[in-house]
C-alpha cells in the first residue's frame, strides 16, 4: 500500500514539474510560479492553501458576490472580487467579468458621484493593476479596459458620465498638467517627450549633477521624487498648466514656505523640470501602469493627445493590447481589429480633444471640465479610415481595390465623419482645412451624389439641413466653433461675421436643447451661460479655444461687448486681467473699464 | 442505618446474569451467570478469580454502570442507580479513571462537590485524605503526571471522600509496590474495623487473604465457592507445629514419636521468611532512617471516616501508625509476625481496642482473629508468593522462595 502511494506521489511530483514547464511553454502562465511567489505570496498562498476546496470556495464567493450585489450591499464587493480573481488569476474571463460588473453594474446602483466614480475606478484598477499583471498578454483584458474608458466614461449613456470625465481629468491634470497648445502638434509632443525620455531610475536621474542636487534639497524637506513632489509642485510652482489661478493667490503656510521657495526658484528651474519629468514618468509607470514610450508613439502617430481626456486612454489600452498580445506595432494596427474603441476614441478626440480644466473650490478632485473640438485629429481619423478601407477592399491577389466598393463597410462612416468634420471646421473658422477634406470626399472617396457637386458653403448648409438635431458632441463642437468665429470677428471689428456666427450658435443650441431637455443626464446649459463661459475663457485662457490673443485685442473685444454681457463677466475676469495689465504696463481701468453698474474699485 | 449494618445484606444479588451482546445483538459473552451474593454489613468480602472471570462485571452491576441481563441487584435495599444509594458508596475502579488534567486537590474537590458537600467540609476532608494517602506534597501536580501507584492512592482518596458505608474496590492493589499494598491492606482492615462494608475484587490472592472476612471465587462467570477464609484455607488433614529450632536429635525423636502414632511426616524444615514480609521489613527499616516527606505519614487514616466513637478510633489509628516507625530491627529470632504494622502490644491500647470492639459490636474480634500471626506460616500457596515476587523482582527472586 505504502509503496504504491509512494510511487504515486513521486510520479505526481515528477509530473507536476513537467506540467509546470508546459504551462510556461504554452503561455498559460505569464508569471512563473517562482516569480509570483517572490512578488505576491498572498496569491500563491491562495492557490495552494485551499487545496481541493478551492473550487467550492470560488463557487461560494461567486454566489455571495452576486447575492450581495442584488441586495444592494457592496461593502465587501471589491474584496470579494479581488479574492475571486486571486483564486483564479490566470483566467482572464474572471477578471474581465468582475471589472465589468463593478464598473457597469455596481456603479449605476449607487447614487452619489463619489460612489459612482469609486466603482468605475475599482473596475479599472482591477484590470489594470492586477488582471494585466497576471495576464499581460491577454487581449480580452485590454479590450475590456479600453471599453471602460471609451464607453463608460467617454460616452454619454451614464447619467454621471461627466463625473467620470471630470474625475479622470482631475487625476491626470495632477500628474501631467495641461499640454501646451499650438497650431501644430509639435509643442505638446515635445513636452511629453521630456517625460518619455526621463531617466527610468533614481540612480540615473542622479547622474545629472543638478538633478541630484535638487533631489537632495527635496530630501531636506523629507520629500521624495515621487507623488509627494507633485503635490508641492502643483501647489507652489506657479506653473499655470497645473496650478489653478486660485492657488497662486494663497500664500504658503509658514511651514511650507521653504519648499514653496524651492518650487518657485528661478535658478533651479532646469533641475526642477528634469525632476518633474522624472516624477511624472514614475507616477505614470508605477501608479497608472502606463508606458510613456507607447504614449509618445501614439502622440507622434495620431496627434497631440491630451491625456486628461478619457478617449486618449481608450486608444492607449486598445492599441497596447494589440501590441502585447499580437506583437503588432502601431503601423500594423488598424480600425478593424479593435472593435469600435480605437477609431471611436480617435473620432471623439476630434470633437472633444481639447480639455480645459477649471479648479473646483468645493471638490478639487472633480474640476470643471470643458471639452472643445480638436481638428488636429481629423487627419488621423481620415487616415485610419482609409487604411481600414483599403484592407477591406484589397483583392485576394493582394492588389489594391476600389475604396468606393461595397466591400468597404467603413465607407459610410468615413463619409459621415468627414462631412461632420468639415462642418465643424467650417464653423470653427478653419475654412481652408474644410475645403481640403471636402475635396478628399470628392476625390479620394469618390463620393457620388448631387450634394457633393455643391461648393463648400452650400454643402455645409445642405448637410446641416439634412442632419437635423446634431449629437451632443457635435452640437458642443458646433456651438463652440460658431462662438469662436463670432467673437473672433467681433474682436477684429467684423460685426457682420459676429452676428452670423452667434446666430448659428444659437440655432444649434436651440435645436439641441429641445432634443435633450427631458434627459437629466445631459443637463444642457442655457445659451447665455455657454456664451458667457466661452467669453471668459477667451479672455483669460485664449489658447483653450485655440487662439492666441494679445492683451490689446482682448481690450478691443471687451469694449465691443454689450453692457449687460460686460456686467456679467467683469467681476469674473477683472482680477486676472488686472494682473496681466500690470505685467504689460497697461492701464487696466482704461483698457477694461468697469461697466456702468459696477463701480471701479 | 444501623439496621442496614447489622441485619440486612448491604448488597444482594439474585440470579444475576450478564450477557454481552455485539452490535447485531448476538450474544457474545456470558460474563456473569446466575450469581447469588449476599454481602453483609460490616464484612470485607473478596471476589476472587482469574482475569475475565466476571469480577469487574459483577462490581459494575452493583454500581449501576452495567445493567443486568437477568436477575436483580439491590444495594442497601435499593436499585444501584438510585442516587441516594450512590451517596453511600465509594468506588475505586481497577485503573485510575481520573481526569489527567486535574490535580489531586481539584480531583477530590470535584468528587466532593458531586456529593454536595459544603465547601468547608470538603476542604477539611481533602486535606486529611491527601495526608492519609501521602499525596499532600503532590496535591498540585496534575494526575496525568502521577505514577501508577500515586494514581491508585488518589483513587482511594476519591473513593473515601464521602465516608462511604460501602466501599467497592476493584483490584485495589494492582500496580502498587508491596509497601503501598501493605499500607492499603492496613487501611482496608482499619476501615473494616470502623464498620464499613467492603467488597474487593482481585486476582491476587495475597491481597484478599490478609483482609477478607469472606471470599467468593468466580470462574467463568459463576461462583465456584464461597466462605470465610478460615473455612476455605484450613487444611484439616495437616497439622503444623511451630517450635524453637530443634537439633537433629530432637527432630529424630519427634519423628519417632510421630511414627509411633502412624503419622506421616511430610516435611521438617526451618520456616522461611516470606518475601513480602522480608521486603516490608527492610523498607520500613530504611524508612526510619531516610524519612521522605510523603511516605512518612502514609497510612494515617483520615479522621472524618466514621467509626464509633471517634476518640477511640483516633487513638487506635495513632497506635497503628506508630508501627512502622517503631518496628524492631530484624533479629535472627523467627519473627512471630511479619506484620510490621502490629506494634508491640501495649496493654492500654489493647484494652481500648477491646473495649471499643465490644462497644461497637463490630466484627473486630473476628478480624483480629483472622489476622496475621497464625496465617502467615500457612502461606505456602505458590500463586501468592509468585505474584508478589513477580511484581517486586520481575521474576528474579526465585532463590528466595
Amino acid at each position, binding site marked *: 500500500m505504502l509503496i504504491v502511494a509512494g510511487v504515486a506521489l513521486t510520479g505526481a511530483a515528477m509530473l507536476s514539474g513537467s506540467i509546470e514547464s508546459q504551462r510556461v511553454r504554452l503561455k498559460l502562465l505569464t508569471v512563473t510560479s517562482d516569480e509570483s511567489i517572490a512578488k505576491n505570496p498572498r496569491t500563491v498562498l491562495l492557490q495552494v492553501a485551499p487545496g481541493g476546496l478551492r473550487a467550492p470556495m470560488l463557487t461560494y464567493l461567486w454566489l455571495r458576490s452576486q447575492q450581495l450585489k*442584488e441586495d444592494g450591499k457592496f461593502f*465587501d464587493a471589491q474584496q470579494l472580487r479581488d479574492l475571486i480573481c486571486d483564486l483564479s488569476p490566470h483566467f482572464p474571463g474572471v477578471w474581465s467579468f468582475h471589472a465589468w460588473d463593478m464598473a457597469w453594474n455596481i456603479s449605476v446602483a449607487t447614487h452619489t458621484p463619489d460612489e459612482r466614480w469609486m466603482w468605475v475606478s475599482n473596475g479599472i484598477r482591477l484590470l489594470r493593476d492586477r488582471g494585466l499583471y497576471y495576464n499581460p498578454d491577454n487581449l480580452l483584458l485590454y479590450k475590456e479596459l479600453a471599453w471602460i474608458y471609451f464607453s463608460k466614461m467617454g460616452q454619454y449613456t451614464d447619467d454621471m458620465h461627466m463625473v467620470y470625465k471630470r474625475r479622470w481629468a482631475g487625476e491626470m491634470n495632477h500628474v501631467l498638467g495641461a499640454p501646451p497648445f499650438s497650431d501644430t502638434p509639435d509643442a505638446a509632443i515635445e513636452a511629453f517627450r521630456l517625460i518619455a525620455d526621463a531617466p527610468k531610475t533614481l540612480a540615473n536621474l542622479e547622474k545629472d549633477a543638478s538633478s541630484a542636487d535638487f533631489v537632495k534639497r527635496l530630501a531636506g524637506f523629507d520629500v521624495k521624487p515621487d507623488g509627494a513632489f507633485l503635490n508641492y509642485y502643483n501647489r507652489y510652482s506657479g506653473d499655470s498648466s497645473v496650478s489653478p489661478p486660485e492657488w497662486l493667490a494663497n500664500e504658503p503656510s509658514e511651514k511650507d514656505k521653504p519648499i514653496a521657495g524651492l518650487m518657485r526658484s528661478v535658478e533651479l528651474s532646469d533641475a526642477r523640470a528634469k525632476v518633474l519629468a522624472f516624477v511624472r514618468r514614475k507616477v505614470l509607470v508605477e501608479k497608472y501602469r502606463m508606458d510613456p514610450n507607447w504614449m509618445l508613439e501614439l502622440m507622434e502617430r495620431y496627434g497631440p493627445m491630451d491625456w486628461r481626456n478619457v478617449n486618449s486612454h481608450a486608444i492607449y489600452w486598445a492599441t497596447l493590447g494589440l501590441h502585447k498580445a499580437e506583437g503588432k506595432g502601431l503601423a500594423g494596427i488598424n480600425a478593424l481589429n479593435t472593435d469600435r474603441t480605437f477609431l471611436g476614441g480617435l473620432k471623439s478626440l476630434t470633437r472633444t480633444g481639447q480639455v480645459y480644466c477649471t479648479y473646483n473650490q468645493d471638490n*478639487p478632485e472633480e474640476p470643471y471640465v470643458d471639452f472643445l473640438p480638436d481638428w488636429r485629429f481629423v487627419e488621423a481619423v481620415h487616415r485610419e479610415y482609409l487604411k481600414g478601407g483599403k484592407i477591406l477592399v484589397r483583392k485576394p491577389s493582394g492588389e489594391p481595390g476600389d475604396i468606393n466598393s461595397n466591400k468597404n463597410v467603413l465607407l459610410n462612416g468615413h463619409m459621415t465623419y468627414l462631412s461632420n468634420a468639415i462642418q465643424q471646421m467650417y464653423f470653427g473658422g478653419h475654412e481652408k482645412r474644410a475645403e481640403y477634406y471636402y475635396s478628399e470626399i470628392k476625390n479620394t472617396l469618390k463620393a457620388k451624389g448631387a450634394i457633393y457637386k455643391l461648393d463648400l458653403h452650400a454643402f455645409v448648409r445642405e448637410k446641416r439641413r439634412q442632419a437635423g438635431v446634431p449629437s451632443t458632441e457635435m452640437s458642443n463642437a458646433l456651438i463652440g466653433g460658431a462662438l469662436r468665429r463670432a467673437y473672433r470677428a467681433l474682436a477684429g471689428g467684423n460685426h457682420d461675421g459676429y452676428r452670423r456666427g452667434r446666430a448659428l450658435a444659437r440655432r444649434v443650441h436651440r435645436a439641441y436643447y429641445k432634443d435633450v431637455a427631458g434627459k437629466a443626464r445631459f443637463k444642457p446649459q442655457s445659451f447665455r451661460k455657454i456664451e458667457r463661459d466661452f467669453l471668459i475663457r477667451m479672455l483669460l485662457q485664449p489658447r483653450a479655444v485655440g487662439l492666441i490673443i494679445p492683451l490689446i485685442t482682448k481690450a478691443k473685444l471687451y469694449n465691443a461687448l454689450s453692457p449687460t454681457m460686460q456686467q456679467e463677466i467683469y467681476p469674473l475676469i477683472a482680477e486676472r486681467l488686472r494682473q496681466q495689465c500690470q505685467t504689460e504696463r497697461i492701464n487696466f481701468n482704461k483698457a477694461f473699464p468697469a461697466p456702468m453698474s459696477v463701480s471701479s474699485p | 442505618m444501623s439496621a442496614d449494618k447489622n441485619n440486612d445484606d448491604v448488597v444482594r444479588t439474585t440470579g444475576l446474569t450478564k450477557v454481552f451482546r455485539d452490535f447485531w445483538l448476538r450474544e457474545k459473552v456470558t460474563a456473569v451467570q446466575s450469581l447469588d451474593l449476599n454481602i453483609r454489613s460490616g464484612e470485607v468480602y473478596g471476589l476472587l478469580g482469574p482475569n475475565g472471570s466476571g469480577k469487574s*462485571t459483577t462490581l459494575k452491576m452493583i454500581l449501576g454502570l452495567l445493567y443486568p441481563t437477568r436477575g436483580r441487584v439491590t444495594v442497601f435495599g435499593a436499585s444501584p442507580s438510585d442516587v441516594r444509594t450512590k451517596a453511600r458508596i465509594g468506588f475505586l475502579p481497577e485503573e485510575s479513571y481520573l481526569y489527567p488534567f486535574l490535580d489531586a486537590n481539584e480531583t477530590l474537590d470535584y468528587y466532593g*462537590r458531586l456529593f454536595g458537600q459544603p465547601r468547608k467540609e470538603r476542604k477539611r476532608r481533602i486535606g486529611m485524605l491527601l495526608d492519609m494517602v501521602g499525596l499532600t506534597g503532590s496535591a498540585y501536580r496534575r494526575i496525568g503526571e502521577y505514577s501508577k501507584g500515586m494514581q491508585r492512592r488518589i483513587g482511594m482518596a476519591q473513593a473515601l471522600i464521602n465516608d462511604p458505608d460501602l466501599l467497592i474496590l476493584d483490584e485495589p492493589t494492582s500496580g502498587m509496590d508491596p509497601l503501598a499494598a501493605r499500607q492499603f491492606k492496613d487501611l482496608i482492615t482499619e476501615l473494616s474495623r470502623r464498620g464499613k462494608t467492603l467488597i474487593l475484587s482481585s486476582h491476587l490472592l495475597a491481597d484478599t487473604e490478609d483482609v477478607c472476612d469472606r471470599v467468593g471465587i468466580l470462574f467463568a462467570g459463576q461462583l465456584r465457592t464461597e466462605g470465610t477464609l478460615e473455612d476455605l484455607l484450613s487444611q484439616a488433614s495437616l497439622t503444623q507445629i511451630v517450635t524453637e529450632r530443634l537439633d537433629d536429635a530432637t527432630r529424630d525423636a519427634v519423628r519417632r514419636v510421630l511414627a509411633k502414632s502412624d503419622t506421616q511426616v511430610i516435611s521438617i524444615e526451618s520456616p522461611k521468611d516470606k518475601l513480602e514480609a522480608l521486603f516490608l521489613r527492610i523498607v520500613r527499616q530504611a524508612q526510619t532512617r531516610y524519612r521522605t516527606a510523603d511516605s512518612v505519614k502514609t497510612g494515617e487514616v483520615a479522621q472524618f471516616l466514621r467509626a464509633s466513637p471517634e476518640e477511640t478510633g483516633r487513638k487506635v489509628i495513632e497506635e497503628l501508625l506508630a508501627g512502622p516507625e517503631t518496628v524492631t530491627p530484624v533479629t535472627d529470632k523467627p519473627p512471630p509476625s511479619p506484620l510490621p504494622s502490629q506494634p508491640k502490644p501495649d496493654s492500654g491500647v489493647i484494652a481500648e481496642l477491646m473495649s471499643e470492639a465490644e462497644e461497637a459490636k463490630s466484627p473486630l474480634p473476628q478480624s483480629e482473629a483472622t489476622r496475621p500471626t497464625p496465617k502467615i506460616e500457612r502461606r505456602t500457596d505458590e500463586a501468592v508468593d509468585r505474584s508478589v515476587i513477580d511484581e517486586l523482582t520481575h521474576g528474579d527472586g526465585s532463590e528466595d522462595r
Partner: protein
Amino acid sequence: MRNIWAVTRQTFIQCLRTRIMVVFCVLLVVCVLGIGFKMTGDGTLKGRIQTFLSYSISLTQLLLCLITIFLTTGIITADIRHKYVFTVVSKPLARWQYVLGRWCGVVGMMGLLLVMALGSIYLLSQHIRKQPTRIERKSVSSLMQRKKMDPDRLGVENEIFAARETYLPEPPNIEKTLQQKIKQLIEEKGKDNLIRDYIKKMVPDEAKAEKVFDHPKMRQKAFREIELVLREQITEEARQAQTGKAIGLTFTGLKPASADESLLQIRYKLNPFKSSKTTLAGAWQIVNPDGPTGPPQYRSDSAKMTSSFMLDPRLVSKEGRLTVFYINLQPGTIVKIQPGDVVVLQRVGSFESNLVRAGLLILLRLMFLAAVSVLFGVFLSFPITCLAVMMIFTTGMASGFIQDATRLPKKTEPSTFEYFSHYLVKGIFVAVPTLSRTSASDSLVDGEYIAPKTLLREYLVTFKQPGTDSGRFWQTMGLEIQAGIGLRTLLTLVIGWLIFRRRELAGIN
C-alpha cells in the same frame, strides 16, 4: 443542583485546559484582529465597518460553533472512552444531571468566549468608527472643505450604529375595487352567464359543463373561484405601475415623528415587467395625512437591485402611518413591486442592545450544537459524532438553500425524484432546525433591529399562517407551528439523556 454545578464547573476547567480550545482562541483573536485591521471594504468607512462586522461576526460564529462541536464531543466521548465516567456516575449524580451539567459547562464557556469576542468586535468597531472618512481626511489636510453632509459619515451613524425595525407595507386594500368589478361584470353579463362562461372555460366538454352548471353547489363554487381569480388579478395590478402611473404603499405601526428625529429610510427593489430595461427612472412621493408632504424624489435605479434613501421622519403621521407612492417615469416600461421589495426602516434601538441580542442568537446556535454533540456523544465515538454534528450544522446553515433547491416545481408535474427529494428534505428539517433564519451578522451589518419577537421565535416556537407548501393537516388547523431552535435544543438534550440513561457505560474488559 449542587452536583450539576459541580459538573458544569469541572467542564469549565476541562475546557480551559484543552489544547484545541487554545488553538481556536488564538485563531479567533488573530482572525478578528486581522479582519479589523486588514479589511478595507469598498474604500468607504461605512464599507470598512460593514466588512469588518460581517466577517468578524460570521467568523466568530463559525469558530465558536466548531469549538462547541469539538469540545462537547471531545469531552463526552473521552469521558466514556477513557472511563472517567465510571467514577463520576458512581457518585450520587443522576444521568440527567451529568448531561445537563456537561451541556451547561460548554454553553457557559462558549457564552464567555462569545462575550469576549463580541466585546472586542464592539471595541474594534468603535475604533474604526472614529477613523476619518475620505472627506474628513481631505478636509483635515484642507484639500477639500468639509461638506455639510458627508454621506459616508451619515451612513456609518444611521445605517450601522443603529437598530432599525423593518416595516413591510400593508397588503393593498382591494375589496372595494373587487366588489365594483364583480358588480360591473354581473351587470354586463348577468350572474348566470358569468358562471356559465367560467365553467365552460374550465370544462371544455359542453354537455358536461351544462351538467356542472345545473348543480347549484357547483355554481356557488364556480362563483367563489371567479372571485378568487379576480382578487388575484386586482392584487397583481395594484403592484404594477405603467409609465406615468403610481403604486401606493402604506406602512403602519411606525413610531410617530418625535423630538429625537428617529431616522427613517426606505429600501426598495424595482422589477421591470416584461422589459429588459436595466435603468428605471421614477419618483417617490411620501404623503403624510396630517403633516407636510415631502417633495418628490426623482431617482434612476438599476432594475432588480436594492437601493435606498433617507426620508424625513416627520413624514410619519401621528398614528404611525406612512404612505408612499412610487411613480414610474420610465417610458415604455411597467414597473412591478413584489411584496417585500419595498420596506421602511426606522430606528428603534441602539447598536449596543442589538449586539446583545445578536449575541443571544449566536449563543442559541451554540446551545443547539452542544446539545446535538451531547446527544451523539453519549453513544457514538468522537470522529463519528463530530461528523454527524458537522453534517447537522452544515445542513442547518444551508437550510434555506437546500429547501429552495428541493421545492416542488409549480409549473410542471414534479418527477418522482423531485417528490422524493422534496419530502426527504422536508423530513430532515422536521428534526434539523433552520440555523440561518436570522443572521446575526447580517442584522448588525445593516443595523437591522433584532426584535424580541424574533428572539422568541428562535428560542421557542413560531405560530404562523400556513404557507402554500405546508401540508393539509396544518391547513386544516389553520396554524403552523414551528419549533424554535431553543425548544429543539431542549428536546435534543432530553433524547440525549434518555439514551445515556439506558446506555451501559462499561463493556467487556
